[in-house]
């Protein structure tokens, strides 16, 4: 499988009156053809900023790309002009957002919002674009698409709107679909439908998916690889099984322990991670998780650990993997043991 998208040491900051917020501090990952990766982490860890930087959607100022590369289709997306970016957005890389209730323009019909991208990128006339839009609505499972085409977003339910968003995003068969918390604002039953739809369409359109989420249940359902982010850095990444069954980073343990499991008895409590993430105005010089980590050592506060290979597909940035570090076993709640 060839690599579609590669992010190398990406750094993004926001210039504010109070100083510079270092939202993304050296993130690297790659995306293979037809693959789904999940970027997980709590609010403010930089996962959305990373994804929106790939699309170059963040207004600048205040956002600044401080360094790194985003390699796509032989180009570095951190350097291309806005005009070139317009040709990539929607056709090559598309995006769906968290809140389907606010992501569609309330004053335009759903149909015309789907048609817009088709007309612009595929140079179709209105009649053909309309046919294509109706076909997209049918593809995402919206019943009586001819009628729905002329309706406004407020006449759609939340799940329907997210389906319409997916229709917009996939209308030009992009190589990469970035889904920024696509199910967070939806009911649990609808969540499953949307995830199934994404899986189904991925096969049909052969798109690679970057899924941004903090819902590990969704991750387990759809992702093949997982990137765990914390305070603007990638702390662990690996195949789905590696992250779920053999997690190495204490933060990943924390995330897994805070998620309900089916094999849990009712008297077992969910374990939150105590403390809060560091202030990204002044990120700590050592490991950003050290202040919340039960196993933190002196070195953790002093120096950021390098990335260690657990296997060829599994990387972690933690001092505990150092040969001289004490052996620490992940807590039972994280790996599902008794």
């Amino acid at each position, binding site marked *: 499988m060839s690599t579609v998208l590669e992010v190398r040491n990406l750094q993004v900051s926001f210039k504010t009156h109070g100083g510079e917020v270092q939202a993304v501090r050296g993130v690297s990952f790659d995306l293979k053809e037809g693959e789904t990766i999940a970027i997980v982490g709590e609010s403010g860890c930089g996962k959305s900023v990373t994804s929106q930087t790939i699309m170059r959607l963040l207004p600048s100022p205040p956002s600044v790309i401080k360094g790194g590369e985003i390699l796509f289709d032989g180009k570095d997306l951190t350097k291309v002009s806005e005009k070139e970016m317009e040709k990539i957005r929607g056709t090559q890389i598309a*995006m769906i957002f968290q809140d389907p209730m606010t992501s569609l323009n309330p*004053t335009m019909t759903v149909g015309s919002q789907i048609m*817009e*991208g088709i007309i612009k990128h595929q140079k179709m006339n209105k009649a053909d674009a309309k046919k294509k839009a109706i076909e997209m609505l049918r593809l995402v499972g919206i019943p009586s698409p001819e009628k729905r085409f002329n309706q406004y977003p*407020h*006449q759609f339910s939340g799940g329907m709107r997210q389906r319409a968003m997916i229709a917009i995003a996939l209308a030009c068969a992009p190589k990469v679909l970035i889904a920024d918390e696509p199910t967070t604002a939806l009911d649990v039953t609808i969540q499953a439908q949307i995830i199934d739809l994404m899986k189904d369409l991925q096969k049909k359109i052969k798109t690679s998916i970057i899924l941004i989420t903090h819902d590990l249940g969704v991750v387990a359902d759809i992702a093949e690889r997982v990137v765990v982010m914390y305070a603007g850095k990638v702390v662990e990444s690996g195949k789905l099984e590696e992250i779920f069954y053999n997690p190495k980073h204490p933060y990943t343990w924390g995330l897994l322990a805070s998620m309900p499991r089916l094999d849990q008895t009712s008297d077992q409590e969910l374990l939150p991670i105590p403390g809060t993430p560091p202030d990204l105005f002044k990120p700590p010089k050592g490991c950003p998780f050290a202040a919340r980590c039960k196993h933190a050592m002196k070195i953790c506060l002093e120096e950021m650990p390098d990335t260690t290979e657990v296997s060829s597909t599994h990387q972690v940035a933690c001092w505990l993997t150092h040969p001289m570090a004490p052996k620490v076993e992940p807590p039972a709640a994280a790996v599902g043991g008794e």
Partner: protein
Amino acid sequence: MDLLKYTLKRFAYMAVTLWLIITVTFFLMHMLPGSPLRNEEKLPPQLKEQILREYGLKDPLHVQYFRYLGGLLKGDLGTSLTFDGRKVTDMVLEGFPASAQLGLQAILFGSIIGIILGVIAGLKRGSWIDNMATVIAILGVSVPGFVVAAVLSYVVGLKLGWFPVALWGTWEHTVLPTLALSGLVIAQISRYIRTEMVEVMEQDYIKTAKAKGLASNAIIFKHALRNALIPAVTILGPMTVNIMTGSMTVELIFAIPGMGKLFVETITNNDYTMILGVTIFYSAFLLLAIFIVDILYGLIDPRIRITQGGKE
């Protein structure tokens, strides 16, 4: 079908509102001290009596009221008490065209400039255009129209000689008063649009539009502006009525035979029928404008459309 039903209902409400306005104005007016002949001190008392009787002003108030309503139903606004027995309807219709033309021009010109200014200011917050728009808005609201009118008349009319200083007739005559009137329109519209643009540009659907690969012009004009227009449309209704029914001061300075002048003269003279006539005309116009604004809302924002089409 729903729209027709809605329109009929709205017109029924409008008729009731208008009737209430007429009734209240009628009785309030008659409670005012003085009479239409107050300023005619030289007239002998007998003659005054006779004139008042002739106009029916000596009858009991309720008789006068019902007679007036009866006349209204026939489209008769009565006869002016000060202007030598001329029909009120004729006088209103005489003054209205000039005021309406000026007002319409001022509203159109002011809205276009206001929207352009507001959009640019909203998109480029903190730029010199934004600052300029703020200054224009403050000037437009705080400097009275008659000062602008006088300055325009003196500088552009008299000193530069580009346009006629005053009077009414050709299109050139309308330029300066239109500019004077449009100041307030530009100020208010540009402020509303600016505030809305700032807010709309931060909405998620703008991000969606950008993620589709649309160019920024398409995003601004197709997605942002339409949503930013909604509040501006709200103030446009009453503003149009205010301006189209004539500004007393601006019409006075440019010696324009409009409705503004009519207003002042009739009120100072206790000209009952003229006051009522002008009030009725003004109210009806305002009600109609509000109705049109409501229809416009629906055209701009489908969520407030009257026809039923809710969720399925």
